[in-house]
């Protein structure tokens, strides 16, 4: 039986312990991150491939095309030829059943090299060849300019409406007392978790009667009547603005409307920015509402519905699908990189304080 190790192990110095755990934890974070973003890399790589690469045996994982070599004015295919104990990339000049003639692209002066064996058993040589043109064809086939314009219109107009109306309502909740305020506030917050389906059918019917189905109106008009999460966020912010400013202005005879526009709005820019970003991305992502109200009007499709329709038609062309998905992703991601601090603070306020 082995003796129990009773010797007290000297703890490593704190610096070294910290270094070890830093390395381990940072390494783990890296590992998870790489796995997490792997699909993105796949998307980029696939978007740069030719349509036929996926179906070919022996094709490499990166975007590549079958290599060729120009010899005496003609193009010849490159094969992987086992010769002198190593595998060499050589251009097949003259194919024969038992033996074929090749040229070594690295040393064309050496002339034709005869290789014995069936050339059909050889694998093709590939060369890295990203098809940047896929993005152009996706751009044109999906008609991105129109989809983007529609999406920007939808997101832009509803953002203006949502921010302005939410700011008004938030000011009302933050600075005035009136009977029933608490219950209104509760009601407003509970609309956030109300499943949208429960109001959908009557509103759809009304819009149908008004002739709005197939237009942008059902998507845009409701945005001008404020939105629970946005109101909550702006209200939280307005409550941190010192009330002395309001009071001073009131003594000078300013009306609440005046105070709203000249004091509250300029002071709440961070909250308004966060809300604008939220709403903009929400609209940019919105799929269900455009699907319901715009189906059958491809001219009005925003990016989400347009991309889905494209996927249905071109699902075999995975390179174009990935290219179009990446084009769709790139604008929100770029905006996010520039505005992430404001954006994340907004998420935290609505997520933690409620």
């Amino acid at each position, binding site marked *: 039986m082995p003796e129990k190790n009773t010797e007290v192990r000297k703890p490593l110095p704190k610096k070294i312990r*910290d270094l070890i755990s*830093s390395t381990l*934890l*940072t390494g*783990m*974070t890296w590992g998870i*991150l790489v796995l*997490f973003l792997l*699909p993105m890399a*796949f*998307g980029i790589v696939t978007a740069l491939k030719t349509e036929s690469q996926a179906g070919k045996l022996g094709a490499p994982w990166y975007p590549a095309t079958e290599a060729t070599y120009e010899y005496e004015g003609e193009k010849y295919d490159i094969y992987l030829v086992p010769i002198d104990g190593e595998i060499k990339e050589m251009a097949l000049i003259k194919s024969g059943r038992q033996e074929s003639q090749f040229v070594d692209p690295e040393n064309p002066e050496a002339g034709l090299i005869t290789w014995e064996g069936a050339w059909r058993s050889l694998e093709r040589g590939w060369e890295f060849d990203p098809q940047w043109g896929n993005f152009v064809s996706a751009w044109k086939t999906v008609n991105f300019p129109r989809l983007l314009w529609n999406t920007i219109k939808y997101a832009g107009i509803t953002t203006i409406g949502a921010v302005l*109306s939410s700011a*008004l*309502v938030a000011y*009302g*909740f933050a600075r*005035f*007392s009136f*009977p029933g305020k*608490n219950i*209104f506030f*509760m009601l407003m917050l509970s*609309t956030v*978790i*109300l*499943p949208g*389906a*429960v*109001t*959908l*059918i*009557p509103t759809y*019917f009304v819009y149908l009667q008004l002739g709005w189905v197939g237009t942008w109106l059902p998507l845009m008009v*409701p945005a*001008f*009547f*404020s939105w629970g999460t946005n109101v909550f966020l702006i209200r939280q912010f307005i409550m941190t603005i010192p009330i002395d400013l309001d009071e001073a202005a009131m003594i000078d005879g300013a009306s*609440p409307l005046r105070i*709203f526009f000249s004091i509250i709005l300029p002071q709440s820019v961070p909250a308004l920015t966060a809300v604008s970003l939220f709403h903009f*991305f929400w609209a940019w992502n919105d*799929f*269900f509402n455009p699907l319901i109200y715009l189906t059958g009007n491809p001219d009005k499709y925003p*990016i*989400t519905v347009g991309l889905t329709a494209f*996927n249905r038609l071109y699902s075999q062309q*995975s390179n174009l699908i*990935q290219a*179009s998905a990446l084009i*769709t*992703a790139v604008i*929100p*991601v770029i*905006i*996010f*990189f520039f505005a992430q601090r404001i954006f*994340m603070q907004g*998420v*935290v306020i609505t997520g*933690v304080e*409620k």
Partner: protein
Amino acid sequence: MTVAEFGKAVKNLKGKRTPLTIKQKREARWGFFFLSPWMIGFLLFYLLPMIASFAFSLTKFNPAVPDETVYIGFTNWIRAIFRDKEVLLSFTRTIHFAAISLPVGLIFALFLAILLNSENVIGKTIYRTLFYMPSMIPLVATVLIWNGVLNEHTGWINILIERFTGIQATGTDGIRWLADPQLVYYAYTMFGLWGVGNAMIIFLAAVQGVPTELYEAAEIDGASWFRRLFSITLPLITPVIFYQLVLGVIGSLQYFLAPFVLNQGTGFPEGKTRFYMVYFYKQSFSFFNMGYGATLAWLMFIVALIITIFLFGTAKYWVYYATEEK
């Protein structure tokens, strides 16, 4: 809004009313003026449609032929609850999927938050940004990218699994993530992970909000890292976990986009992805059975309400509030 605040707000409602002074009346008028966008919106887009939706559920109604609408009492409700097996089936599928995707999503978010809060991870802000980034990608694009990476022939996930474990993962006999009824919910859960951003930074903020004195005291008492996690961090952030859980459950009930983008609501494979919302969409906007659709919507609302009330009921057993009322 915490549970405690909620209770307080309800109590305040019962308070005695004293008549308002002229100044208070003026203030109230302005208050209502500023609230008016919300009030009009609430009436037009929430309250009236909800009532109308219930009225519609008592009819046979097709918007293409509104003149043929007939009142049929609770026939739709009886059909939805007792006759139409697809209602219960699609609801069970929704719950089954939520039971996988919600815990995985929340635990992953919490795990990242704790990891990115650690002093020993170098370059935290960059990781935070990069883990958040996929949340910004429109979900349609996310679904298409994942649809590619999970493809059984060309997707990298199966190629990597095959390379590292030797299990045959690629090809028609490989792992068919989106075509195998046993696996499809796990595949959908995976693309849900790209939306981890919001929950992650909310949890991160919550974890950072835990007073450091508590950790210091625990460390002096010799509490291990795990002990501190389970006895300090997690209990103190339960309010935030609770809120994310409620939102997650309500969101799961309305899960629609991924199956619709991938299979147009056919439920492929074997009906497994015909979730409740997909079925609602089919009935209402493919078959235009809008009376029945309104019934399904109301049923979903009732279920969501029951689940929410149930969750709030469990809150007092596991959600910790530092500012609990005496």
